[in-house]
């Protein structure tokens, strides 16, 4: 006989416990249903259009027959995202470096952090308006809508993601590494270039890849800055086709072949984004 006898849990309490656990489980199941359904329909409707010259032809606007594929859209998305990455990643990492190596917890650094956080809350369409007002209306570079203005917009959307994810990684670099290098007489810039950045590199890559994946699916900002085109163009100083904008246009088409193309393009876009996410995961796991 034990000294302390806990009163048994009453049937009512046990029932409540079981019901609430059941509710929490069903909440989780409900949360996963949309994911399963979206992936199912993407595969079911999208794979069908992944045929023949889907990836090797451009939309041709022909009303009868084959409406064409998504070659120009894929290449356009890659070009615009590539340029945006070339801008956002170096600038983002630089600002994160300033925050961790110089700004630290000073009042000004915290102000910068705060506004960068606020920047993430700004809807992407508002960034589209910003660039539309400052660059498109005034026809900077001789053209109204151009691909590089889309890159600028997407870069602005990626920037806070790159900065904050880089900052987290740079903070993880042990202070003792920096101090060791400084004690050996290395100047700060050398410490940053030779010790801090290489140590944090895998994490920086992960953050950048996630930012790219986020930027790739943006539609609204591109509508305001790149507009759309159907033909394949290499020039960044002109309108360009992109996957999200083409999908957006195709959805409202009355032709079922065009709607099918939207499903195929959507599957392509989601596949690209998921692959980027997987690579990001793999990179961050290997660095551990």
């Amino acid at each position, binding site marked *: 006989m034990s000294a302390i006898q806990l009163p048994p*849990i009453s049937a009512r*309490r*046990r029932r409540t*416990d079981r019901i*609430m*656990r059941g509710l*929490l*489980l069903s909440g*989780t199941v409900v*949360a996963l249903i*949309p*994911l399963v*359904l*979206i992936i199912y*329909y993407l595969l079911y*409707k999208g794979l069908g259009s992944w045929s023949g010259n889907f990836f090797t032809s451009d939309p041709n606007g022909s009303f009868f027959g084959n409406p064409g594929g998504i070659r120009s859209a894929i290449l356009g998305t890659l070009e615009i995202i590539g340029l945006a990455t070339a801008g956002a990643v170096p*600038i983002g990492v*630089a*600002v994160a*470096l*300033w*925050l961790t190596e*110089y700004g630290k917890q000073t009042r000004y650094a915290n102000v*910068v952090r705060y*506004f*960068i*956080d*606020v*920047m*993430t*809350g*700004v809807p*992407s*369409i*508002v960034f589209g*308006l*910003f660039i539309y*007002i*400052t660059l498109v209306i005034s026809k900077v570079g001789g053209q109204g809508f151009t691909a590089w203005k889309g890159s600028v917009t997407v870069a602005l959307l990626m920037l*806070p*993601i790159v900065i*904050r994810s880089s900052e*987290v990684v740079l903070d993880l670099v042990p202070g003792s590494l920096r101090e060791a290098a400084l004690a050996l007489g290395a*100047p*700060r*810039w050398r410490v*940053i270039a030779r010790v801090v950045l290489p140590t944090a590199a895998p994490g920086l890559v992960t953050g950048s890849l996630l930012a790219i994946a*986020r930027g790739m*699916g943006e*539609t*609204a900002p591109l509508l305001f800055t790149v507009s759309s085109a159907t033909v394949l163009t290499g020039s960044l100083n002109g309108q360009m086709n992109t996957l999200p904008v083409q*999908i*957006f246009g195709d*959805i409202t088409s009355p032709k079922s072949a065009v*709607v099918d193309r*939207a*499903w195929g393009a959507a599957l392509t*876009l989601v596949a690209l*984004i998921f692959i980027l*996410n997987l690579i990001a995961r793999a990179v961050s796991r290997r660095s551990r």
Partner: protein
Amino acid sequence: VEAHAANGTGGGRAAFVRSPLHRLPDQVLRWGLGGLATAILVLIAYFFIRLIGQSGTAFNHFGISFVLGNDWDPSREIYKGLPLLIGTLITAGIALLIGVPVAVASALFVTELCPRRVRAPLGMLIDLLAAVPSVVYGLWGVFVLGPKLEPVEKLFGNALSFIPFIGDSASQIQPGNYFIAGLILAIMILPIVSAISREVLNTVPPEHKEAALALGATRWEMIRMAVLPYSRPGVTGGAMLGLGRAVGETIAVVLVIGDSENLGHHLFDQGYTLAAVIANEFGEAANDKLHSSALFAAGLVLFVLTLIVNVLARQFVTRGARGKRFGGDVGAATNAVAVAGPPV
């Protein structure tokens, strides 16, 4: 190091003193990086001022009735945006009503109830929802969710016809409506609210939970009495960040809300949101000064709205983090998730 070396007076220390020329790269780097950070702030301020400038025409023309007047009609050149504002609030409200309970339930299940081994994969699956672009949500909403849900909406409208806003609607359900838009938004904010809630729930000190269990609480009682009170501010902040996202979402909404400039009469009626009207009318407004100014003004209202929501959300998150012994990293973790998105 430089500072110490410069102050050093001993003969041996002179070896550590760098010449001004050698210190130059350091100064360049320091002020260059700092300048970059400042440039971003300046750029944002500049954008904001330009947006205010561009929307001036519309605000001068309509004054406060731009926000409070119920009449948006480009053909008569009248832009009073109450239907858009109400549409934004209704859809975002529906999104919160549906999305937050599901997100918090899933977060509680993942952190407190499910076996340790499935924890990470389950969280990752929910995070995957955030990787789906909004145009794909729109596509799915138009061709799958909308048509499949119509009978359900009919049933719902009939059963609840005694409630004013929901009722008298069963006979005239529109293919695109407030409810579908709200539901899509609920799915879209689910991963972010869930991820932030998981971060917050993970910071609840195990001592609190163990104490509750040791006193004879059941699992649910432990959640209700130890976990939820501790994490409430952080979860609230997460929900508000979700709200900010729902308010600003454009492409998915424009595809499924029906795009009607009149204020909808019931839950299943067509409507509009601030973001959707900008995306939809922007093409035709390009050569019309008043119309485009009205759209910029709508963008400004949207910007200010999301700014307020986000600032409040951050207040909640940091208040949740402060004053708590173990809560120091709630704010940091939540910020990281909110900014970088769920760690997929």
